């Protein structure tokens, strides 16, 4: 397989995953926005979307204040914003278009249909539709992509690169979401405010579709430490860091076991496999997540080196500029 093909498939999957996560983040911001505020009625709940995507400076250059309508329009529909859902899915579609003949027919057609529809949605239409319905729709389209990948793609190296893209990106997104929430919530381990925990950390769980998973796993009220454990160390939850590195490690072992990429993925996975949540919180969640994001990005670089991907990137800057996000 051409290195460029591998590169395109890898990034196609990453962009789809990224779009899905943006929809999740906006969805949870929207939910939190509807809760009674702690007085100031600030736009704080909308900040994560801007911080995670690295678009806070460009947002602030264009808008005076952080408001729901501006953030949603900017992060969902603005084609000028390279991190918006429409741009990200546009990039996914461009990558898929370049490799459409490697992909099952359904995969390109599904992404193409998503993109065509997304492009036709205006903010007014979004209001008519309802935010929740829109976010649900984006998630559904992304699920359809993942489902089609798993159920129709021939499981050769093209498949491995696609799946690898999904898990590398998902790990990155989970870590970022958790980190931003951590800043906003600034949990105080000694402070006991179960109502705040319920709503605030509950929102984090909802953003990750992890609310039910939490209940099933812990059968307990929502405790920050357990939320952190679920989203980092519990392999059985498919968006946890451990789950993502486990999947990436398995894929890389199969694709090319003697590479630095495979070793690195294995090492990170082992740390998560044997790590304890008290060690994470003792050291500090932020430090832990920062290191994870950096090492996860390192896997991505090593994948590029192992399979000769870097020299073969052919997408124009518009679809490349947002690949690596500023931390």
């Amino acid at each position, binding site marked *: 397989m*051409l*290195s*460029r093909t*591998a590169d395109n498939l890898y990034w196609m999957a990453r962009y789809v995953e990224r779009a899905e996560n943006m929809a999740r983040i906006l969805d949870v911001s929207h939910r939190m926005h509807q809760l009674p505020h702690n007085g100031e009625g600030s736009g704080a709940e909308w900040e994560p979307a801007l911080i995670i995507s690295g678009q806070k400076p460009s947002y602030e250059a264009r808008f005076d204040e952080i408001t729901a309508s501006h953030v949603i329009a900017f992060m969902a529909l603005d084609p000028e914003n390279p991190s918006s859902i429409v741009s990200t899915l546009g990039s996914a579609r461009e990558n898929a*278009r*370049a490799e*459409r*003949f490697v992909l099952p027919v359904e995969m390109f057609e599904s992404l193409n249909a998503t993109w065509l529809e997304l492009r036709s949605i205006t903010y007014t239409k979004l209001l008519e539709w309802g935010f929740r319905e829109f976010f649900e729709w984006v998630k559904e389209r992304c699920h359809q992509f993942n489902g089609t990948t798993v159920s129709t793609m021939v499981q050769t190296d093209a498949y491995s690169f696609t799946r690898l893209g999904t898990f590398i990106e998902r790990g990155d997104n989970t870590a970022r979401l958790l980190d931003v929430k951590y800043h906003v919530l600034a949990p105080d381990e000694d402070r006991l405010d179960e109502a705040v925990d319920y709503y605030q950390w509950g929102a984090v769980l909802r953003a990750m579709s992890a609310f039910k998973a939490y209940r099933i796993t812990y059968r307990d009220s929502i405790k920050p430490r357990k939320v952190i454990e679920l989203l980092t160390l519990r392999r059985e939850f498919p968006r946890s860091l451990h789950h993502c590195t486990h999947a990436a490690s398995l894929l890389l072992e199969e694709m090319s076991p003697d590479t630095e990429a495979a070793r690195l993925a294995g090492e990170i996975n082992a740390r998560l496999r044997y790590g304890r949540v008290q060690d994470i919180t003792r050291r500090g969640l932020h430090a832990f997540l920062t290191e994870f994001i950096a090492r996860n990005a390192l896997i991505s670089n090593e994948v590029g080196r192992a399979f*000769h991907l870097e020299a*073969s990137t052919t997408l124009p800057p518009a679809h490349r500029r947002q690949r690596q996000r500023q931390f």
Partner: protein
Amino acid sequence: MPSLPFDEMTRPDGGIRAPYLTYDAWMARTSIDTLRQKHTQADLLFKRIGITFAVYGDSQGSERLIPFDVVPRIISADEWDYVARGVCQRVMALNRFIHDVYHEQEILRAGKVPRALVENNDQFRAEMVGFEPPGGVYVHIAGVDIVRTGENEFHVLEDNLRTPSGVSYMMENRDMMMRLFPDLFDRYSVAPVNHYPQELLKTLKYVAPSPVGSPTVVLLTPGQYNSAYFEHAFLADEMGVELVQGQDLFVDDGFVYMRTVEGPQRVDVIYRRIDDDFLDPQAFRKDSMLGVPGLFEAYRKGTVTLANAIGTGISDDKAVYDYVPAMIEFYLGEKAILRNVPTYHLDDDDDRKYVLEHLDELVVKEVHGSGGYGMLVGPKASRTEIAAYKDRILANPGNFIAQPTLALSTCPTFVNEGLAPRHVDLRPYVLTGKTTNVVPGGLTRVALKEGSLVVNSSQGGGTKDTWVLER
């Protein structure tokens, strides 16, 4: 009043021409609403599969569907024989001509083609002089544009010997027609066209550098933003070869390799859909981002074959075109089967005088133009347009040729009001490897605007499925 153009279906006396009799009977039992519904269905299907082309000069870089018409263009077996013999004869002579031009130049010495026309031509590649391509083949793929003006009158408009496109539509259109009108295929015996990629692959493998057991063939595309990218991907897929871009290839020690996830892999034959100028920044345009540095050197060394060869443009401009019948006589000792359209050369004083006085009757084209861009259709142009075009001609007369406006044949076409005659042309695809042959069919382009003679997709033309009937 000008007489009506030749119609592919209906004779002037109202009778139906033989190839269309069955279609006519079928139409009589089919409502226009059925056609309308099939038309909409085809549109949706094409959009969903994503068969689009990019429009140059559109700042949005937007993609459009090439309109597809649901009424087939039907050609009888006899008519096809004639056309097929005609195009093969031309391509054989043209291959001989290119070889001659880059070697002994016998035809120039015999005075059959003016020397200046060749040697002062931008498309003459001095780098190719004395080079012997595998099998002596220069034009592996040609897309000859033919128009019809009467029962037995077929004219060649252009030979398209560089990187002719459109063949994917020939196949996709057939696929669509079989899907939409299965009953028509029960009534007609239509020659299949979908083996074209296999024929193409056979051709490409045949011209591989000699000591290669199982040659690796690739298709080189400028990339997904090229207007014909869909076709490139389609053909690569149908042939089962890698679709590569410049960045995927590199030259090491005189051999061409592609970058794969398992490391470098040797490449033997490149079906390139990139113009000569952009193939190799070391040999041609320095600013080319599309090409492969060192490719030309490898090609000259004979370690890799390019299809088509470099330098075929020399026999593919609208001035050299005029001499193709002379080439056929010179190399093959035969009379040209297909006619040329009389051509006026604007650097000739008499011709220029005549043309400038008759601009409102003639079609004027740029010598190196293609895609229907930059041409003047006199009878359809306004006075201002004619005056402006005149200035362009006078600024550089040698850059233009003129031809009489041909009454292109018409074919019934589905439009808003129902069925109406629209002008069509025909582009069969001629392959040359061990032999020269042509898949029975081609791309019929149709000018959808009433009265328009410009069939190019970039100018609002559409396409039709072309049926060659079997005996």
